[in-house]
């Protein structure tokens, strides 16, 4: 068993790195875009909030796999040919950005109105109030659901194997195709997914503890 694991590990390892790569890109892109969307939701005028609402509801209401296929197969019909990797990253990021946008909206909305009043009263501009008053407090509310969504991203990234990206999932399937030993390979792959997400939740608990001092 151990010998088998050691033999298959190098093949899985490459896939593991691809999974990490895809996940990391998606997490970063969706974080930046999602926070921007959340700020738009919380403070934007109607002409901005309405399209954001449509975007968020449509994306969150569509299966991730459908989104990946849409970007990969539909965009080329409109003349935009994408390689599997960028196509998958774009689809996952767009999907995740909608989720992160809702998390950010909720976190910002949970900060009392009086905080904005107090920021205004000492003469802070909108950007300064966001940077020094609202966002530092919203972070605490934002972190727990966001870390959940990050672990979802790692797991959801397995779907990119369906457009031919050799991530951990597809690498495992390729090894199984050669060894005809599905169970140990899947167990090994599952353990590698778990290792990523366990590391993430440990890191997030540390991070949350750092913000626990804020009491309202």
């Amino acid at each position, binding site marked *: 068993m151990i010998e088998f694991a050691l033999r298959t590990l190098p093949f899985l390892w490459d896939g593991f790195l691809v999974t990490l790569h895809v996940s990391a890109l998606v997490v970063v892109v969706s974080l930046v875009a999602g926070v921007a969307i959340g700020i738009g939701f919380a403070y934007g005028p109607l002409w901005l909030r309405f399209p954001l609402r449509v975007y968020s509801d449509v994306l969150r209401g569509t299966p991730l796999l459908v989104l990946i296929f849409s970007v990969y197969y539909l965009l080329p019909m409109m003349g935009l040919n994408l390689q599997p990797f960028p196509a998958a990253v774009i689809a996952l990021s767009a999907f995740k950005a909608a989720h992160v946008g809702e998390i950010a909206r909720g976190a910002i909305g949970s900060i009392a109105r009086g905080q904005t*009043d*107090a920021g205004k*009263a000492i*003469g802070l501009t909108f950007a300064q109030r966001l940077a020094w008053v609202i966002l530092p*407090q919203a972070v605490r509310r934002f972190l727990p659901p966001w870390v959940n969504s990050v672990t979802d991203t790692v797991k959801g990234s397995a779907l990119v194997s369906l457009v031919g990206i050799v991530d951990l999932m597809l690498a495992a399937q390729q090894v199984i195709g050669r060894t005809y030993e599905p169970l140990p390979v899947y167990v090994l792959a599952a353990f590698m997914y778990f290792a990523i997400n366990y590391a993430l939740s440990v890191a997030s608990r540390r991070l949350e503890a750092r913000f626990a001092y804020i*009491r309202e």
Partner: protein
Amino acid sequence: MSDPLVRIRGLRKSFGATRVLDGIDLDIARGEAVVVIGPSGSGKTTLLRCINVLETYDDGSIQVDGVEVGYAGPPGPRRRPRSESDLARIRADIGMVFQLFNLFPHLTALENVMLGLVKVRGLPNAEAKARAEHWLERVGLSEKLRSLPGQLSGGQQQRVGIARAVAMEPKVLLLDEITSALDPELVGEVLATVRQLASDGMTMVVVTHEMTFARDVGSRVVFMDAARVVADGTPQDVLVDPRHERLRAFLARIEMKRP
């Protein structure tokens, strides 16, 4: 009276169909402490919040030190609301202390006071720190510089709120029922701080339910009822010798609640 520091003319505001300010005229001179009293819903807090444009006003004019606070351009129906950066500059010179303190809970007492000094006034850190320490000491909190708001009592939090506003060296200070959320035994320490500021010549507009406060801090008392100013005069005129029917009824109700 020379040019008033705050000049309010024909101020009107509605929330939907409800008129909350219906033609307010009020002048506040430099160094004056004007106390605004009146029943809940009479518009006093809204009046205060219009002065630093936490609320916009529909009609009329508010000038602080000669500058129209809410609108740019010449007066008239086509005047346009001020830009965010204009408002920030105007508000920096108008201090406000809130009923629920509204301290920044993620910052220490010292940092609460320093934030505006550094980000708005552009003071170097060391200078901002010195000034913040000075004001926290003035309000009796030199032991609490590193405390977070959550670690302070209500009275202490409110004194940080006062220090935060005053450290900006505003032209006028707006106090919005600043003792209403405090336990009775903590009211005294906050009132003493404000009394000190008033005697130092700080111009202030005080919305309060504390009649004792109105009597000994106010150089002038304004009584508002149903979106209008009903009486305006010295504490003696308004509180001791009230001529207006609704004012007498209001004072009688307050007296009855007194222990």
